[in-house]
């Protein structure tokens, strides 16, 4: 079960940690003392760990979902690409400014298809996190993504985007190089790409930074992720004028996959292994792959022009309003 050298636990995962530590201890004892058979006890404990994992993820609050999406052990874009595809060839650069390490992409073989993968990449340790800029792309990242998507369109290959970002980077250079224009251009071009576009929120889906690679025929969310217009922390700071209302903001924003599906803003939820994707990368990847293959087939079957028409129609329907003459508000 454990692939990671040292697991990290969130506050609400602490009950799992206790059991987990006991298992480790028993294993250690088993190694030292070959005469006693601990396997039964270990098995029992592992069973209760599974049950705990199930129990905990069943009743997550909106804020806990946000925390899960940021779990330090959670798999990132390249971990999935490596597990679900073959012959991945990473392609770098936007051909304008530089290669943005927060955005990755390239061709790969997914099932029987050649697809173009594009996604934000977070770092796995302190050094890598800095290099990847915490998954916050600059304009050149979005332009790199668009370059790769246009390349896919040229060779008639489906596009799969894996979204995991706390937002597009807010910096001086980002503004100088047109962060807003870069995201706007991506949205504008993505909505009329002639090839199938499948988008999956695999972690954090924060605002324009996510939507900049998030306009697709199908938009899917993994189980322990969130997607909305602003991070709960920033929302709290702006609307409540304090950083302390993030839990409440997360609730109010209704940012969970369940809500998003109910609102018709995403098309499906991809389940994760019990307790979250970080407990089993291979299993999480396998579930993702089976969903992707199914959806790609489905979308590929639609003629290109009709597909673009449907994509535009799908986003055109989003929103809520009513038609009335007077200034009376109904909730």
């Amino acid at each position: 079960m454990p692939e990671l050298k040292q697991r990290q636990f969130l506050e609400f995962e602490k009950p799992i940690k206790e059991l987990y530590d006991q298992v480790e201890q028993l294993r250690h004892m088993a190694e030292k003392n070959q005469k006693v058979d601990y396997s039964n006890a270990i098995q029992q404990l592992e069973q209760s760990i599974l049950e705990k994992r199930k129990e905990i993820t069943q009743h997550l609050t909106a804020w806990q979902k946000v925390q899960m999406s940021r779990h330090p052990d959670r798999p990132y874009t390249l971990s999935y690409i490596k597990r679900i595809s073959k012959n991945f060839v990473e392609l770098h650069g936007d051909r304008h400014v530089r290669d943005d390490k927060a955005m990755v992409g390239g061709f790969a073989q997914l099932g029987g298809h050649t697809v173009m993968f594009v996604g934000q990449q977070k770092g796995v340790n302190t050094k890598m996190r800095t290099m990847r800029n915490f998954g916050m792309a600059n304009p050149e990242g979005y332009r790199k993504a668009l370059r790769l998507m246009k390349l896919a369109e040229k060779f008639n290959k489906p596009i799969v985007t894996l979204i995991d970002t706390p937002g597009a980077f807010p910096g001086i250079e980002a503004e100088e190089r047109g962060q807003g224009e870069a995201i706007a251009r991506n949205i504008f071009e993505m909505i009329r790409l002639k090839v199938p576009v499948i988008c999956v929120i695999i972690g954090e889906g924060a605002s324009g930074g996510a939507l900049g690679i998030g306009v697709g025929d199908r938009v899917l969310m993994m189980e322990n992720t969130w997607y909305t217009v602003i991070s709960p922390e920033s929302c709290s700071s702006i609307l409540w004028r304090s950083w302390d209302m993030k839990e409440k903001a997360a609730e109010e924003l209704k940012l969970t996959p369940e809500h998003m599906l109910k609102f018709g803003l995403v098309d499906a939820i991809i389940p994760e292994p019990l307790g979250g994707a970080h407990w089993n990368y291979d299993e999480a990847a396998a579930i993702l792959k089976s969903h992707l293959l199914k959806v790609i087939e489905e979308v590929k079957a639609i003629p290109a022009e009709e597909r673009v028409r449907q994509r535009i129609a799908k986003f055109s329907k989003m929103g809520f309003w009513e038609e009335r003459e007077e200034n009376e508000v109904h909730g």
Partner: protein
Amino acid sequence: MQHEEDFDANLAGEEGQSEETRSRWFKRIKKGILTSTAEKKEAPDGLWTKCPNCKYTCTVLELREHLFVCPKCNYHHRIGSQEYFEILFDENRYEEMFANVRSIDFLGFSDLRPYSKRLKEAYAKTGLHDSISVGVGKLSGNDLVVACMDFNFIGGSLGSVMGEKIARAADFCLEHNFPLMIISKSGGARMMESAFSLMQLAKTSGKLAQLADARIPYISLCTDPTYGGTTASFAMLGDVNLAEPSARIGFAGPRVIKETIKKELPLGFQSSEFVMEHGFLAIIVDRKGLKDRLAKLLVLFKN
């Protein structure tokens, strides 16, 4: 660049009051200016106004004659959709469209106040239907649809109604082969509509893609301020991107950038001139020359 304003605060309906300004030792008992845009036209001639940039004092009438541009320092005062329509459409003749598309509090969102209450307050304060109004008329004899934001209405925030009105305006343009102009003046997305407001970026961009395919000109005018979701969609997607002088235009707000990079921002950062210098605006145009410039463009697109 004279005054540093907190755009985010406007999105919360707080009229640009940052935390610093709110903690002053005195408190405003009454609300600020309560005059709705519609009523402003009847402003008495004798009323005086002071330019926030150069402190030049003149009458409201004089300012109005100068299209709300300071006669002395060319400071462009923030104005609403009715004023823009008056400036752009011949003899102020235009038809307002889709005014009955109204916001609802679909999510039951509540921060310090419920969204539904914020909406009611915004209606009462501004007399407007929402943060955007759409008008169709003639500009120097050329047909034009103008969708214009009002910053007074919850910071000109981009929500479902703005998205729907822009979509309908684009459909109208497709049907009649009229050019479209969007005048942006917004602090960003309407958080109280959560992911629905985010999706308006895709919704409006999809419509603009259809206009592009039909070879219908789309002109974007960025005014002070143009931020967040507006910049990350239609405001930057014009066949021609225009801006008023010294307007602040950007993706992330200055406060957020400062907090992230922990450095002071350079002078003139995110001004129209800065954005043009970096290649994202085609023309910066004075409000007084706006109509002429647009008329020229519309004729050039046509012939």
